Structures are given as C-alpha cells and as structure tokens.
C-alpha cells in the first residue's frame, strides 16, 4: 500500500513540476495521471502491482475526497438562487449538446472507417429507417 502511494505521490509531484516549468494552466495531478498512464502502458503493468492496489483503494472512495471542496457551497447558496436560470440552462444544454455531438461523431466516423457495428440488441428493429 505504502509503496503504491509513494509512486502515486511521485507522479503527482512530477506533474506539478512540469506544470510549473512549462507555466501552463493544466492541473498538476492531470499531468501526473497522463504520465502514470504512459508508465503503466510501457511497463505492461498488471493488476497485482502496488500502484494498482493503492490506486484502486483511493478510487473506491474518490467521492470522500471532494466533500471538503463541495461543502464550500454553503457560502454560495445565495448566488445559486440568484443565477438559477443561467446555471440550469447552461448545465443541461451543454450536457445534451455534448452527449449528441460525441455520440454522433463516434457513430459517423465508425461508419466512415468501416468499423464493425456493435449495436444494442433489439434497438435496430424499430428505427432502421430514419
């Protein structure tokens, strides 16, 4: 467990260092995640390794770690009420647009490139003809 955590912290520190040196506005842990991904791929890391064990233990309780940040909402309840309309429209609208764009792009490119289809069973019968 401690070995795995040491590795995770090392990748995070490396990510933070790169962000500072390159002076980019990308969060350090995200760069650390990218570096760890490359490392795991290159090493063909398997599930019994210390990084996977420690990392999976953290990920099981990922939600716990953002409670302190989320509690800050108590200071913004007024703002939420005041801007309820722009917030809800932006959240829902952008969610729906994103969902449609990702789905259609993936399906379109797949057909274009001739990849085999993998449709949900039974879904094709009712609506094959648009």
């Amino acid at each position: 467990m401690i070995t795995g955590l040491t590795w995770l912290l090392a990748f995070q520190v490396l990510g933070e260092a790169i962000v500072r040196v390159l002076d980019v506005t990308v969060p350090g842990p995200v760069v650390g995640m990218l570096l760890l991904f490359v490392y795991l791929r290159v090493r063909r890391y398997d599930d019994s390794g210390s990084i996977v064990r420690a990392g999976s233990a953290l990920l099981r309780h990922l939600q716990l770690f953002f409670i302190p940040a989320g509690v800050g909402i108590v200071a913004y309840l007024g703002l939420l009420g005041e801007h309820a309309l722009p917030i809800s429209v932006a959240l829902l609208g952008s969610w729906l647009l994103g969902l449609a764009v990702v789905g259609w792009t993936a399906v379109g490119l797949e057909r274009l490139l001739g990849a085999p289809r993998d449709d949900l069973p039974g879904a094709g019968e009712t609506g094959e003809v648009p």
Partner: protein
Amino acid sequence: MREDLLDLARSPLTLLLVTLAGYQAGRWLQTRTGGHALAQPVLVAIAVAGTAITVLDVDYADYRSATELIAFWLGPATVALAIPLHRQADRLKGFVVPLLVAVVVGAATSIVSAVLLARLLGADEALEKTLSTKAATTPVAIALTETLGGIPPLAAVFAIVTGIVSAITAPAVLNLLRIRDRRARGLAVGAVSHGIGASRMLREDETEGAFAGLAMGLSALAISLLVPVLALVLF
C-alpha cells in the same frame, strides 16, 4: 451549551468525524436504494457537513483546513485515474480515431456551449468559468476551476449534478438521439458526465460501461488542455 463542549464541537477532530459520518450515511443510503443515481454519498455528506458548520457557526475556511487531511488525497486519487484508463485501453483496437476525435470535439462543445449559454442568460465571468469545467470528472473540474479563477465548490456541485442528471436520463436520451452503437453510447455518457454517468452505463452493459470509463479519463485530459486555450478566446 458549555463553552468547552462547544469548542470540542468546532475542533478539527469533530469536523472530521462529521464529514466521515456523513459519507458513511450516504453510502448506507446508496446501498439501501439499490445504488440509485440520486443517492450519491458525496451529496449526503455535503448536506450533513454543510448543516453542521452552519449550526455550529464554523467559518468555511476553518472547516476546510480542519479537513485538509481528507482533501489532500484528491490529488493522488486523480493521478490514480490512469489505472482504469490503462485497464480499458486494450478495448480500443480499431476504434482509436473515432474515440479521440469524438472526445475532443465533445469537450470543445461542452466548454463553449456552457459558457455561451450562461453568458446569454446573464451570468458573470466567474460563474461562466466554473460552468466550463463541469463535464470533467469532479476532482479535475475542481482543480481546473481553481487555476482558471472560478468558484471551486460550485464546480464540484455542478459536476456532480451533471453526473446525476446523466445517470438517470442518458440511456433514454441516447435512444431518442438514435445512437445505438454500444461503444458510442458509453463514450458519449463518459465524455459528458464522468464517473457518475459511467457507473450507470456499467450497470446497463459491460461494453458501454468500459467505454464510458475510458471516455471519462480522456475527456478529463481533453478538457484540461482545451479550457486554457479556449479561455483566451472566450474571456
């Protein structure tokens, strides 16, 4: 209440206990409801801890430093998101191009549409910045909002709410949009609603769930890289 007991109630020890107990209560509720998307442990915990600090009259800044012990692990846990990505990467064969293009286009769509819709309806800049990150997984949304100069606690809540809406409605909406390919469905949900959406897809179908998990990781990366660039144009 006695002054020394009140001090104890406001101490880091008690605030940590309240936070962990709220989280446990949320997990209990999640199990009891059979994993319903609305029963997110983090929401229950935020409600419990938020009520506690309001009643006890504790400043949020004091609560935040009392719970640093918990918040610290958000960074290493974000790094650890590489693990599920690594496990799913073998499924990518023959699907790399559609996947990468769709995720990047989707990230740009999410960011730009959130900012413009909010602006159209009269939100201020801090709020627009906060909304722009909401499709990323919560830890990344928080970190990005912080670097952008938005409002991190709201970023957390926006990301969670987006995830919940998606977890409840996405399969039906995808049917309406006539998106039936399992990989594309998983991809779409993971790209716009991260882990909470992905866990719903995993219950629906293994392929959908795996691609949702994959899209969550890639989308967090794409959003992190695109937001600073798009911010130059948008703000």
